[in-house]
């Protein structure tokens, strides 16, 4: 039992932290957000060069062979910088599905492009009717002689606009909410029958609504065994939760620290507002929420690294619940203590608040994960 970082991990953390603090300032980030495609190709290239895109992938495909703890360290720093590059969509979600479920051929075919930064990807798993139930699928994949034909509608596909290929969940058998009968497929984003509607999200990422109309794919597009995709999808999403939850922890750190700084300078009734005991205790509570979230982040990462099972699932749900509640508390109070300034687009506070708000919803909100936690 050990809560300290290895030398390698400390190095990784330091290098990402340095990048975020020096090169990814809030002003730079805001400039990137206003461009098309909503993230910086140059920054992405830097990520590739620094090896960050390779962290979770096995050495067999040129990856770093990192573990959950490494991903956690990396994403926490991304959170501090409000990094909008589609790391989670490409590396964690779509890349994760192929890493965990792909054959050697599939891994060799798709992962090197992610690692070298030449290919973007997205996971198309959500559907409008399904809320957070990963098995609730109306999209169908019908087998034919050459492979499968996909039909359906996938909602809020993060990084949909830039993705070169998609990992799509679809039903090959079973009723609308059955876990059996869910299958995952790799689909070329340019394939005939794939149509997108793109938009920015509340927290300045890009996403798409994607309609699949008689999209024909080969047999080699199937990830894992037919009809057995649910377990794979759940694990990928849990890795996604660790990733965005770690981002939220980074966001909270900035939110509470910036608030502390602001209350030291902002004066009212002739003294810094940070002198008022009520605000001091509020900031103590923000600090504690951040620390609790961080502690559960460590636990979740370590449990994931012990092997994916119910203990890991439970730790992930506990982390997600905490991040949802803490993010709301820390974000709301950071805005509140900044007063009107916290509401403006000019200051970063509101943008961090939006990010933690959206992170609560992504991959299941507090309600959903409380239930999952209780059932495990």
């Amino acid at each position, binding site marked *: 039992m050990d809560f300290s970082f290895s030398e390698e991990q400390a190095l990784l953390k330091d290098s990402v932290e340095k990048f975020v603090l020096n090169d990814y300032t809030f002003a730079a980030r805001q400039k990137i957000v206003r461009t098309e495609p909503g993230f910086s190709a140059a920054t992405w290239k830097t990520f590739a060069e620094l090896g960050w895109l390779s962290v979770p992938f096995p050495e067999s495909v040129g990856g770093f062979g990192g573990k959950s703890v490494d991903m956690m360290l990396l994403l926490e720093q991304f959170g501090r910088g409000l990094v909008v590059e589609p790391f989670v969509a490409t590396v964690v979600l779509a890349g994760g599905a192929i890493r965990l479920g792909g054959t050697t051929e599939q891994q060799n075919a798709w992962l090197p492009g992610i690692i070298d930064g030449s290919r973007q990807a997205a996971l198309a798993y959500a559907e409008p009717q399904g809320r957070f139930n990963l098995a609730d699928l109306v999209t169908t994949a019908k087998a034919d002689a050459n492979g499968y034909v996909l039909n359906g509608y996938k909602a809020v596909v993060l990084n949909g606009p830039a993705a070169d290929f998609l990992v799509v969940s679809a039903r090959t058998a079973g009723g609308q909410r059955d876990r059996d009968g869910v299958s995952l497929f790799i689909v070329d984003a340019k394939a005939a029958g794939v149509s997108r509607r793109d938009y920015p999200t509340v927290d300045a990422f890009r996403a798409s609504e994607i309609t699949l109309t008689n999209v024909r794919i080969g047999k080699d597009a199937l990830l894992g065994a037919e009809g057995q995709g649910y377990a794979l999808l759940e694990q990928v999403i849990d890795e996604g939760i660790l990733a965005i939850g770690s981002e939220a922890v980074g966001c909270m750190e900035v939110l509470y620290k910036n608030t502390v700084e602001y209350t030291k300078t902002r004066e009212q009734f002739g003294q810094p507002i940070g002198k008022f005991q009520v605000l001091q205790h509020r900031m103590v509570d923000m600090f504690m929420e951040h620390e609790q979230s961080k502690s559960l982040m460590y636990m979740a990462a370590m449990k994931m690294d012990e092997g994916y099972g119910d203990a890991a699932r439970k730790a992930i749900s506990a982390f997600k619940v905490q991040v949802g509640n803490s993010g709301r508390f820390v974000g709301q109070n950071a805005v509140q203590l900044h007063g009107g300034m916290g509401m403006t687009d000019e200051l970063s506070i509101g943008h961090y608040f939006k990010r933690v*708000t959206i992170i609560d919803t992504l991959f299941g909100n507090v309600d959903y994960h409380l239930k999952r936690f209780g059932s495990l």
Partner: protein
Amino acid sequence: MNLSLSTADQVFVDSVRQFVADHWRGDTTLPGGLLAELRAEGMTVAERQWFDALVQAGWSVPTWPVAEGGPGWSRLWQFLFMRELAAMGAPLPVSVATEVVANVLFSGAPSAARTQWLSDIRSWRSRWCLGFAEPDLLADRGAGQSTTAVRTGSGYVVTGQKTWVTGGLVADWMLCRVALDGQPVWMAVSLREAGVTLHALPVMGSSLAMARVELNEVRIPLEGCLGAVEGSGITPPVSVASLVRSGVLRRDLLRLEADSAVQEDPAMQRACAELGVVLSGIEAMEFRALTSEATAEQGTLRTMLAIRGAEAGQKLGELRVRSMGYHAVSFPDGERFSNEGLFGDELALPAVRRALFDRAWTMYAAHHAESSGSGGSSVEALRDELARIVLGSGDSVQ
């Protein structure tokens, strides 16, 4: 002690209900028409028709006395009128102009300009905003200001800056607090005048055309000086409009409770019931404030209502987002966005933007309680105020 209405009161309520049914055709998903006239996009067609109908009926300024062109209603009738509108989702005819500006004008000297201003406000044809806060003086209630007027032969010249001006980008007039001979006075500033520069102040989730307003030697005629600022000058005057907050929120809550995501989820149902109880408590305090004779009790109740109303409004916004699932993620901030083709959930857009903007409620609790312009207090400052009452005498109200 009873809740019953007299026959005359009941007849009045019925007539209001009929009037709304006949004349309000708008999109009732917007929150009680709050600040409709100060939205960047202006009024919708339905809103315009509604306000015209109110003008025709003589109901467009329900809180005004007869002498100024209002219906001269009792506080009870003002309350009953607004409560029906809130319950039926029709915009309330109360605004910065009808409540704050008009009150300043009422106590001023007669003039042609005054008559015109009041007439335009009454017909909902002019848009006013409030110039209270200045950069760096934001949250200090009662702090001084550096915006200054200098006398000239024909009037005044005003120079300074105002910020957090809600609707400043679209308003015609600004009721502006300025120093004249070292004393604070009210001035009516035309925002079309030379020397006025408007800077947009984009605010999270808001479409209320927030502005920073620069005044550089702006000329104001003599009639533009509306008199001395009384008291701290930034407490909006007491209005019955603030006592129907629970009605507006309850309507939104009922709509939320009808949502399938809520109906399928016991946790959401419980959260809605919890908020429903809170709204019942707010409603009961509103009744007490309405019927109370004692000014001190009214003041305490109003402060509590400002705090609890702000907190309840934010809670409702959070519940709305909670109910949405992925719908919450997919809408951009800061621009109107057609919902067409996206889930077909017409509530999604207002929900997220409103939940974000709702954060302002606990900062400017008093402001929202009056559904008027700037000049509110944070819930922390309001609790400080209440602390003086609670610790001062230790006495309860009533």
